[in-house]
C-alpha cells in the first residue's frame, strides 16, 4: 500500500538579503489516510513552515510533498488549513465566511439549496449554527476557531491542516475544542495534521507524534506512536500508564535531549 501523504526528503531554506537560512533539513514522513499526526517542537523549529509546505503556501527548496502520489506545489481546498488566529474575514458573518469556501469549492457540483444545507451541517458540526448571523467580532475566540474549523471542514478536504489551532485560547476553552476535534475526527475519519507546542494536547489527540529538533536546519528527531484506544477520555487518561509513558517520552525529548538554547 502506498502512503496517502508522503514528505520525501524535504529541504527548505529562505534567502533573505543574500543570506541563506536553512530551516528544514531532510524531512521524510509518510502519513496514512485517517491518521491524526501532531508535529511538536520548540518555537522557531520550523514546524509552521512544514505545515505551510504541505498546504502549498510556501515552496520546498528540495524534495517533494506527494498527496496520493501527486506532487503538491500550490495551495488548494483539498488541503484545508485551520489558521492559528482563525483568519475569519471580519466583514462577513459566520455563515458568509463558510459560504465563501463552500461556494468556491462546490460551485457547479451542488445546487444553491444543497450548498446552504452543507454550510449549516458544518456549522452545526462545530455547534455554531446558532451564531450564523453574527460577525467574527461579536463571538468569542473559541467560537471563532470553531467557525475556522467549520470553514476548513466544509471544503471536504483530503487532509485537514491545523496550525496551532488552540494556541490562543484559554485552557478550558481549549479542552472543550480538543474534545470537539476528537469527536469530529472519530465521525468523519479524516486525515489531520496538527502543529502544537502543547505536550498533553499532542498525546491526547494524536495517533503519532512527530518531534522536531531545534533549528536551524531542523530535522525529525523522533516519531512516537501513541498506543491509546479511541475514543479517548481526558479524565480516564490522567492515570493511564500508557498515557503517562507517552507524555514522558515527549517531555524527555523536548526538555532533555533537545532543550531550547535561548539566544543570549
Amino acid at each position, binding site marked *: 500500500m502506498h502512503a496517502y501523504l508522503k514528505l520525501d526528503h524535504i529541504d527548505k531554506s529562505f534567502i533573505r538579503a543574500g543570506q541563506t537560512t536553512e530551516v528544514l533539513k531532510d524531512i521524510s514522513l509518510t502519513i496514512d489516510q485517517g491518521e491524526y499526526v501532531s508535529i511538536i517542537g520548540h518555537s522557531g523549529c520550523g514546524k509552521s513552515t512544514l505545515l505551510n509546505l504541505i498546504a502549498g503556501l510556501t515552496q520546498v527548496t528540495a524534495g517533494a510533498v506527494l498527496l496520493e502520489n501527486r506532487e503538491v506545489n500550490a*495551495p488548494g481546498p483539498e488541503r484545508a488549513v485551520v489558521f492559528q488566529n482563525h483568519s475569519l474575514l471580519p*466583514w462577513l458573518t459566520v455563515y458568509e465566511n463558510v459560504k465563501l469556501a463552500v461556494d468556491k469549492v462546490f460551485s457547479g457540483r451542488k445546487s444553491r439549496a444543497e450548498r446552504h444545507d452543507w454550510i449549516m451541517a458544518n456549522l452545526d458540526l462545530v455547534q455554531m449554527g446558532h451564531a450564523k448571523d453574527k460577525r467574527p*467580532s461579536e463571538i468569542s475566540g473559541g467560537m471563532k476557531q470553531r467557525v475556522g474549523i467549520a470553514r476548513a471542514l466544509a471544503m471536504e478536504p483530503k487532509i485537514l491542516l491545523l496550525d496551532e489551532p488552540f494556541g490562543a485560547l484559554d485552557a478550558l476553552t481549549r479542552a472543550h475544542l480538543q474534545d470537539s476535534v476528537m469527536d469530529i475526527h472519530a465521525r468523519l475519519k479524516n486525515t489531520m495534521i496538527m502543529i502544537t507546542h502543547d505536550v498533553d494536547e499532542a498525546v491526547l489527540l494524536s495517533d503519532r507524534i512527530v518531534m522536531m529538533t531545534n533549528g536551524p536546519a531542523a530535522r525529525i528527531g523522533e516519531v512516537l506512536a501513541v498506543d491509546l484506544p479511541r475514543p479517548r477520555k481526558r479524565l480516564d487518561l490522567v492515570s493511564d500508564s500508557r498515557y503517562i509513558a507517552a507524555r514522558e517520552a515527549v517531555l524527555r525529548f523536548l526538555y532533555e535531549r533537545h532543550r531550547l538554547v535561548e539566544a543570549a
Partner: protein
Amino acid sequence: MAVPVQKTDNVTSLPSPKANAKPAEVVALPARKSEGRSKRIVARLKDIAANTVPPLLVVGLILVVWQIGFARPGASLPAPSVIWAEAKDLILDPFFVMGPQDIGLGLRVLTSLERVAVGFGLAAVVGVLLGALVGQSVWATRGLDPIFQVLRTVPPLAWLPISLAAFRDANPSAIFVIFITAIWPIIINTAVGIRNIPQDYRNVAEVLRLNTFEFFFKIMVPSAAPYIFTGLRIGIGLSWLAIVAAEMLTGGVGIGFFIWDAWNSSKLSDIIVALLYIGVVGFALDRLVAAIGSLVTRGTAAS
C-alpha cells in the same frame, strides 16, 4: 495584614444588601421606567444643546462684530444687514428660474455637483483600480509611484489649459480637472490599504484558489475599504475646491462662474451668499462620504 481582613469582610457582607434590594427594585420598576425615559429625553436635549449652542453663539458674535465694523457708509465690504437687503432672494429661494442665466444658487450648486459627480465618480473607479495595481504589484509600484508622487503636487488649475486644449470644450475640461485632482489621494490610500491586507486573508484566498476577480471583490476591496474611504473623503474635498476655481475660468452656470460674474458686476453681497452655499455643500459632501464609509466598513475592523 489589614488587606485580607477587609477582603473577608466584603465577601460576607455581600449577599445581605443584594437580598434587601431585590424586592424593592421590583416594586419601583414601572415608576422608574417612565422617570428614566423623561430623564433620557432631557439628557438628549442637553446633549444637542451642548453641541449647537456654542457654534450659534459664535456665529451671532461674528455677525454682530461684522455689522458694527462695516455698517458705516462707504465700507469696503457689505455688512450683514446690507447682504440681507440685497441678496434676500438668493438666500430664501435657492431654486428660482428667471431666465437661462438668472437661476437660483441651489440650481447652480446642482450643476456644479453634477460635474463633481462625474469627475469624482471616474476618479473613484480609476483610482481604486490603479491603487489596487500599485498596492498589489512591486513592479507597478516601482514604475508608477514616482510619477504619481510628482503629478499629485500639480495644482488643479494648472491642468486646465492642457485639458481645454485636449477637449476643446469647457464642460469636459472642468470634469477632467476634478478627475485629476481627486484621483491621487484615492490611488495612494487604496495602495496603502491593499499593502496592509493581512497575510492571513491572502492565505485564505490562496487555499480557496480565488481567482483575480474574486480576490479583488471578496478580499481586497472589503479589507482595504477603510483606507479607500479615507482616500475618497480627501478626494471629494479636493474636487469641491477645484470645481469652483475651474468654473470661474470655464464659465457656464456653475456656482464658481456665478462668483466670477458677481465680482465683475460688483455684487459683493451675492458673492458672500455664494461662499456660504459652497461651504455648506462642501461640508455636506464630506459628511456624506464619511457616512457611506462608516456604513460600508462597519464590521471591517479586524478583531
